[in-house]
C-alpha cells in the first residue's frame, strides 16, 4: 500500500533533478471565474484530454513567465474537499496528488470570487490547511466594486494563514502580471500557516494518522473522519489499515455522536466564514448598474420566461439558418473538389477512393463544424455571462416533469438543428443520469439532416390536400417533428425509470450575476471544442465514410464497364451535341446502377430484403437505408444512383422515378403506407455515425452508442412495420 506514495516521492525527485516544469492545480468554486482565469494565463498553450476511465475532461495549460514554464491544471469547480460528484472527486484527488497519471501539484492557485466570499471562504479554509504552497487570485473585483463590496485584502490574507492574495480582473487583464510572477515563484514559496478552524478535527486526524499503515497526511485524515470511508475516496482510504479503520469509527462517534458529519462541518466552517467575512468586507449600498437592472427584470417569473424563449429562438435560428450557407458551401466544395480530383486521376479504384471515399469522408466531418462552432459560441457566451444557470432555473419545473432537469433544455433545443452539437452541449448537466437520459433523448429531435429526406418523400407521395387551415404535407411534416419530441420525452422518462433510475439530484443552482464575457477566453474555449470534435469524433466518422465507400464500390464488374463503353462508342458514332451528352450520361448512370446492384452494398440490400419486405421495401430501398446508416442524408444520393438518375439528380427526376418503381408483379413499391412507414423509420432510426461517435466520446464507453443504435433502430423498424401492415389492409 505504501508503494504508490514511494513512487510519488521518486517522481517528484526526478522532476526536481531534471529541472522539469512545476505544476500548479487551479482550484475554486464553480462560476468563480476559474476557467476564464485559466484561459487568460495559458492562452492557446492548452491540451484537453480525459482523466483515465471517466468522462471528465482534463485541461492542462502552460504558463510562461520570464522564460520559466509552469504547468497549470484547471480542475472541475468544487465547493468542498468533501466530494459529492465524480468531478469534485477528481478535483480532490488531483489536489491531494492521488490521481493516476497526473503528477502531484507543487502548489495551488485558489480562485476566490470577490462577489461570493462567503462560499469561497469555506473551500479556502480546507485548502490552506493542506500545507501546500498557495496563491489566491481574488477575481471579479470590478464587479464587487460595482455592487458596493469593499474587501480588505491584507486582513483577508491574515485570516487565511498569511497566504499571498492577488486581486485580478480576468476579463480585462488587470493584476495579471502580478499573479503570473507569484505563480512562477510558487514552488519556492512557503505554504501558508494552517488555520485549524476546527481544532478537535485536527487532533483526531493526527491520532488517526499515527494509527494508519500508509503515508496518509493530516488533511487526508481530516477528510476521512468527516466523510468516512466511501467509494469515492478509495484512492487514499485504502492506506488506513485495519487498526486505523477501527479507530476511525470511534473518532467519528466521539466527534459527531448522531449528527451528520457533513452538517457539522458546514456549521463550523460557515460560522468562521461569516465572522471573517464581516471582518474583511464592508458593503456600501450598491449603485444600480446595468447588471442589477437586467437581473431585476429577468427575475420576474413571466418576463424571465419570455426572455428565455427569445434567447432560445435566436440560438435555434442561428444554428439552423446561419450555418446553412456555410454548410452548403462546404458540401459544394467537397463535391467539386472530389469531381475535379476524380477527373484528374481518371477512372479507377484509387481515383474513386480519393474522390468518393477520402474527400467525401473529410467533408462529412467538416460539414458539422459550422453548427458546432455557432452553437458553442452561444453556449459559451451564455455560460460565461451567467445566463445558462438562469435558463436551467427557469425551465427546471417543466423539464423535471418529463424526467430531465432544467439544464437539459439547451442540448434538447440544439438537437433540432443537429444532435452532434446538442450531445456535446450536455456537458453543462452535472448529474450523470440526467446527462445520459438527455443524450438518449436528443437524437430523436428532428435534425436538419432528416429534413431533405422528409421533404423528398413528402413532396413526392403526400397529396397537398387541405386539412382545415393546413396543408396535408405541412401537417405530416409537423407530425414528424412532434413524433420526434414525444419519442424523445418517452425515452428520457423510460431511461430514468429503468437503467438510469436514481435519486433526483438536489437542485441547488448558483445563479451568478450577469457579467460581460471576455472575447479572448470565449475564442479559446471555442477552438478547444472544435479541436475535440475534429480529433475524437472526426476520426470515427471518417473511417465509417471510407468503409461505406468500399462497400458501394467493390467488387467491380468489368463486364458492366465494358458494356457501358461499347454502348458509349456506339452512341458517339450515331449522335452528336446535347443529345450525345445526354445519352452518355444516361449510359453512365445505368452502369453505375448496375455496379451498385452487384456491389457488397447492393448484395447486402438483396440479402436483407426479406427482413425489410414486411415493411414494403424492395432491395433498392433497403440498400439505400443501409448506406444511410453512417449519415442519413446520403440516402438521397444513393437512391439517385440505384434508380440510375445519377447521384446529383434533382428532386423532381428522382421522385418521378420513385413513383414509377414497382415490384416484379407490377404493383408500386412506394405506396402511402410504405412511405409513412419509411418516414417513421427515419424519424426514429439513429442513422448517423457522427452522433454515435459523439455519444461514444461523451459517455466514454461504447455501451451507450450501441444501446442507442439498437433501441432506435428497433423502434423505427416496428413503427414502419405497423404503419405498412395496418395501412395496407
Amino acid at each position, binding site marked *: 500500500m505504501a508503494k504508490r506514495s514511494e513512487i510519488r516521492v521518486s517522481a517528484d525527485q526526478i522532476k526536481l533533478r531534471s529541472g522539469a516544469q512545476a505544476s500548479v492545480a487551479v482550484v475554486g468554486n464553480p462560476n468563480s471565474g476559474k476557467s476564464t482565469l485559466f484561459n487568460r494565463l495559458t492562452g492557446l498553450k492548452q491540451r484537453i484530454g480525459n482523466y483515465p476511465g471517466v468522462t471528465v475532461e482534463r485541461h492542462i495549460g502552460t504558463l510562461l513567465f520570464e522564460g520559466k514554464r509552469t504547468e497549470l491544471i484547471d480542475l472541475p469547480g468544487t465547493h468542498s474537499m468533501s466530494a459529492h460528484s465524480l468531478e469534485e472527486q477528481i478535483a480532490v484527488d488531483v489536489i491531494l496528488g492521488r490521481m493516476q497519471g497526473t503528477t502531484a501539484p507543487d502548489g495551488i492557485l485558489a480562485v476566490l470570487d470577490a462577489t461570493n466570499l462567503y462560499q469561497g471562504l469555506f473551500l479556502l479554509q480546507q485548502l490552506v490547511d493542506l500545507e501546500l504552497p498557495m496563491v489566491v487570485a481574488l477575481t471579479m473585483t470590478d464587479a464587487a466594486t460595482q455592487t458596493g463590496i469593499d474587501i480588505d485584502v491584507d486582513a483577508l490574507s491574515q485570516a487565511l494563514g498569511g497566504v499571498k492574495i492577488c486581486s485580478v480582473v480576468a476579463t480585462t487583464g488587470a493584476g495579471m502580471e502580478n499573479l503570473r510572477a507569484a505563480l512562477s515563484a510558487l514552488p519556492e514559496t512557503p505554504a501558508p500557516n494552517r488555520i485549524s478552524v476546527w481544532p478537535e478535527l485536527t487532533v483526531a486526524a493526527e491520532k488517526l494518522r499515527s494509527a494508519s499503515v500508509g503515508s496518509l497526511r493530516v488533511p487526508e485524515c481530516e477528510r476521512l473522519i468527516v466523510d468516512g470511508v466511501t467509494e469515492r475516496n478509495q484512492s487514499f482510504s485504502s492506506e488506513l489499515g485495519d487498526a486505523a479503520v477501527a479507530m476511525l469509527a470511534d473518532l467519528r462517534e466521539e466527534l459527531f455522536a448522531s449528527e451528520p458529519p457533513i452538517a457539522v462541518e458546514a456549521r463550523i466552517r460557515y460560522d468562521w466564514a461569516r465572522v471573517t467575512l464581516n471582518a474583511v468586507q464592508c458593503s456600501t449600498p450598491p449603485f444600480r448598474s446595468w447588471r442589477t437592472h437586467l437581473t431585476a427584470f429577468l427575475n420576474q417569473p413571466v418576463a424571465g420566461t419570455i426572455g428565455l424563449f427569445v434567447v432560445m429562438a435566436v440560438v435555434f435560428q442561428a444554428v439552423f439558418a446561419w450555418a446553412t450557407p456555410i454548410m452548403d458551401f462546404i458540401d459544394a466544395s467537397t463535391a467539386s473538389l472530389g469531381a475535379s480530383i476524380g477527373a484528374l486521376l481518371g477512372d479507377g479504384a484509387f481515383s474513386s477512393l480519393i474522390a468518393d471515399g477520402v474527400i467525401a469522408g473529410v467533408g462529412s466531418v467538416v460539414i458539422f463544424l459550422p453548427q458546432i462552432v455557432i452553437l458553442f459560441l452561444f453556449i459559451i457566451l451564455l455560460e460565461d455571462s451567467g445566463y445558462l444557470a438562469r435558463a436551467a432555473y427557469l425551465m427546471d*419545473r417543466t423539464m423535471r416533469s418529463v424526467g430531465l432537469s432544467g439544464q437539459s433544455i439547451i442540448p434538447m433545443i440544439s438537437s433540432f438543428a443537429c444532435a452532434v452539437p446538442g450531445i456535446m452541449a450536455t456537458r453543462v448537466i452535472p448529474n450523470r443520469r440526467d446527462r445520459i437520459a438527455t443524450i438518449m433523448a436528443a437524437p430523436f429531435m428532428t435534425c436538419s439532416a432528416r429534413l431533405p429526406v422528409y421533404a423528398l418523400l413528402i413532396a413526392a407521395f403526400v397529396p397537398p390536400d387541405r386539412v382545415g387551415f393546413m396543408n396535408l404535407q405541412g401537417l405530416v411534416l409537423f407530425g414528424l417533428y412532434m413524433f420526434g419530441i414525444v419519442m424523445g420525452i418517452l425515452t428520457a422518462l423510460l431511461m430514468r425509470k429503468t437503467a438510469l433510475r436514481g435519486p433526483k439530484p438536489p437542485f441547488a443552482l448558483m445563479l451568478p450575476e450577469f457579467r460581460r464575457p471576455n472575447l479572448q477566453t470565449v475564442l479559446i474555449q471555442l477552438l478547444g471544442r472544435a479541436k475535440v470534435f475534429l480529433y475524437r469524433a472526426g476520426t470515427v466518422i471518417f473511417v465509417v465514410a471510407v468503409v461505406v465507400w468500399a462497400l458501394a464500390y467493390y467488387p467491380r464488374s468489368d463486364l458492366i464497364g465494358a458494356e457501358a463503353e461499347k454502348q458509349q462508342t456506339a452512341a458517339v458514332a450515331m449522335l452528336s451535341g446535347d443529345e450525345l451528352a445526354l445519352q452518355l450520361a444516361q449510359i453512365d448512370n445505368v452502369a453505375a446502377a448496375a455496379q451498385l446492384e452487384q456491389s457488397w452494398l447492393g448484395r447486402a440490400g438483396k440479402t436483407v430484403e426479406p427482413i425489410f419486405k414486411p415493411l414494403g421495401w424492395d432491395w433498392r430501398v433497403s440498400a439505400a437505408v443501409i448506406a444511410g446508416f453512417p449519415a442519413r442524408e446520403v440516402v438521397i444520393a444513393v437512391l439517385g444512383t440505384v434508380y440510375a438518375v445519377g447521384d446529383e439528380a434533382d428532386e423532381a427526376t428522382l421522385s418521378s422515378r420513385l413513383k414509377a418503381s414497382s415490384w416484379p408483379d407490377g404493383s408500386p413499391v412506394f405506396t402511402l403506407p410504405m412511405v409513412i412507414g419509411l418516414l417513421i423509420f427515419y424519424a426514429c432510426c439513429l442513422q448517423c455515425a457522427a452522433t454515435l461517435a459523439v455519444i461514444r466520446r461523451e459517455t466514454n464507453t461504447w455501451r451507450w452508442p450501441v444501446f442507442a443504435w439498437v433501441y432506435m433502430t428497433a423502434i423505427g423498424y416496428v413503427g414502419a412495420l405497423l404503419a405498412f401492415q395496418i395501412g395496407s389492409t
Partner: protein
Amino acid sequence: MEINAYTLATLKRGEKGVIKSVDASDPQVQRLMVLGLVEGAEIEHASSAIGGDPIEFRLFGSGISLRQEHAKFFQVAPIAAGG
C-alpha cells in the same frame, strides 16, 4: 420535529429571514448546507420561476435556487423589512 410556520418555502418575495434550524437528516439537505445554508445565515427570497418553483434566494449577495421540496427543511426567523 416541531412544526414551525416559517421555513424558506414560506418566505414571500422580498422577505428576509435568518436560518434558525436545519433538518439535516436528508443527504440532499446536507449538500445544501455545504453551499452555505446553515444556521445563522441571512437569506432573502429574491424571485421564483413560473409556478413558484424553484425559488431564487439571495445568500450573502449571491443567487442560489432551491426547489420547494428542499426549501421546507430550513426553518427561518423572519426579519422585518429594512431590518
